[in-house]
């Protein structure tokens, strides 16, 4: 797991006998570093604040979407428990709980996931733009 081990070239013709597996990626500071990147890499106060901002944005996005699922799905057992009549409602001949859990829940989960991927990538794009912004 040390950082100075090399990742083996894939499919080398004669792989030499290896004793350890490189499990972590080697992360080297890149040559092309402008000031903001250097600040990020060197953990200056500015760089640290940038990273904290990104982490906070991504975490609050994840928590907000979890809340959507928590209310949308997690509320169902409670709803069925306090209002048993909801369970007796039938749509197209099927009782509502069967329809909600057996069918509707899956597209709902996928929709939340799709929204997350879009928004998380936008957060990252904002962060990249911030870092790569030309210095004045």
């Amino acid at each position: 797991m040390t950082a100075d081990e090399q990742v083996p070239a894939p499919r080398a013709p004669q792989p030499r006998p290896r004793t350890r597996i490189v499990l972590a990626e080697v992360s080297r500071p890149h040559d092309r570093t402008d000031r903001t990147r250097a600040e990020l890499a060197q953990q200056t106060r500015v760089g640290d604040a940038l990273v904290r901002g990104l982490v906070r944005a991504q975490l609050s996005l994840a928590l907000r979407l979890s809340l959507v699922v928590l209310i949308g799905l997690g509320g169902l057992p409670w709803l069925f428990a306090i209002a048993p009549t909801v369970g007796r409602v039938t749509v197209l001949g099927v009782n509502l709980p069967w329809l909600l859990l057996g069918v509707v829940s899956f597209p709902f989960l996928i929709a939340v996931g799709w929204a997350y991927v879009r928004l998380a990538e936008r957060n990252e794009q904002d962060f990249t733009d911030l870092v790569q912004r030309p210095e004045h």
Partner: protein
Amino acid sequence: MGNGFVVPAIVAVTLVTLVIGFYGLRLARTTSDFLVASRAVSPTWNAAAIGGEYLSAASFLGIAGLILKYGVDVLWYPVGFAAGYLALLLFVAAPLRRSGAFTLPDFCELRLGSRRLRTLATVFVIFIGWLYLVPQLQGAGLTLATVAGAPYPVGALLVAAVVTANVALGGMRAVTFVQAFQYWLKLTALAVPAIFLMLQWQADARPAVTPPDGPAFRTATTVVVEQRAALTFADGTIRQVRPGDELTFAAGDPVPEVSGVADGADWLLPSAAGDDDRGLFATYSLILATFLGTMGLPHVLVRFYTNPDGAAARRTTLVVLGLVGAFYLLPTLYGVLGRIYTPQLLVTGQTDAVVLLLPDAALGGGTTGRLLAALVAAGAFAAFLSTSSGLLTSVAGVVSTDVLGRGSVRGFRLATVIAGGVPAVLALNLSGLDVSQVVGLAFAVAASSFCPLLVLGIWWRGLTDLGAAAGVLAGGGAAIGAVLVTVLGPPLSGWPATLIAQPAAWTVPLAFTVMVAVSMATRHRMPADVGATMLRLHAPEALRL
């Protein structure tokens, strides 16, 4: 059973698995090929492979059986199994890929720099892996016994041997192709018969699932009881039955009420407040275990390393969510139609066999029915093979690097044999465990140990090695205790039984609380490089920092 198509179908699936494994063997050359497929697997292949690996015996057979038996309340199993991928996507997927960790122990060492924590994580990976492998092998044994009349050990040992050979010889690149193939096989094996079943149901003038007079036998049926139960007949007489008892019913006879099986309104409607608070607690506990347990399963995480970057890991997870969600629409249908066409399973107690027996029973034993039954059996075998391969790859990876301390291809092969042998022996000696229940407990252990470790490790700078270890020991230890009491202990009743059978609702909060509290008390042990780690976990690769 006497269905001549079943054995050839199972043999074909096994052979195709071995052939694709062999084809992969020619491509696998170096250690990195073996372990992470050189990270050259395309997202679509990878997503299908993740789906193929994830849909286990519990998904393929167990869910339909539970729905047949208990009704609407257990629909939370498929919902939770799918929602687990959403939790994984929201909190873990991209940062974990960026961490460069290949296994959970790697992540521990990388984030917290502690060898001891790594060892603890290794122990949990092996425990969860074996806990999950045993029911797969048992399912294989039961399937072969049900559809082909083979003795129980044959199926269990067959799957154990095929999977061990395949993983040891082909490594993960081979397994990736095998898994992707098996996802599509499993989907086909449930979807095609489902279409025929729906058509048959239409042709039979749509018999009601919950007729007002209770379910009835459609044909004259002889039932051989396999589990002790109390039967209440339509005329009010109660009869205790033991395994081996034979009962004969004429066509149109009502199905007796079986103790422990949900009936009528209980089956159709969710548990209501007041009459059964334990039911509500168990439901929420199940939701928590399945939502949060997926991210802690060792064979799920390994796959993320084969994505080229964090963004690809996210997109792959979203595709997996779609693939898995599509699959989970089907078991419900089998469980519901089983209520109409195979009510005898409620009396025998062999509800797990509903998926295997339904096509034949509904379509009336013609060639179509037998071909569909063979297809379903092949799909079930694909489920055992793929999940066991994935589990075995990850357990063997951990054993070879952390226990044997060798990273060579030979070391990996030795580790595979060890990692596959132990659950095979366990499966032969523990044949009485319920497949779905054991799988549920594996999720509970994962949710109370690795879920807090991953979520706090990725999002909270304040986590320390001592805090992580204390949380894993408290939460995971409590969940393991619940597993051991379930497997070895005396039968319980009332609240203790509920708390032990569905422990996640108290063990997960316990793990989070202990982890946070001990970390705050040991602030001075926070790793010095936590800032750099956070940057690496969350910054997009495009920046090339």
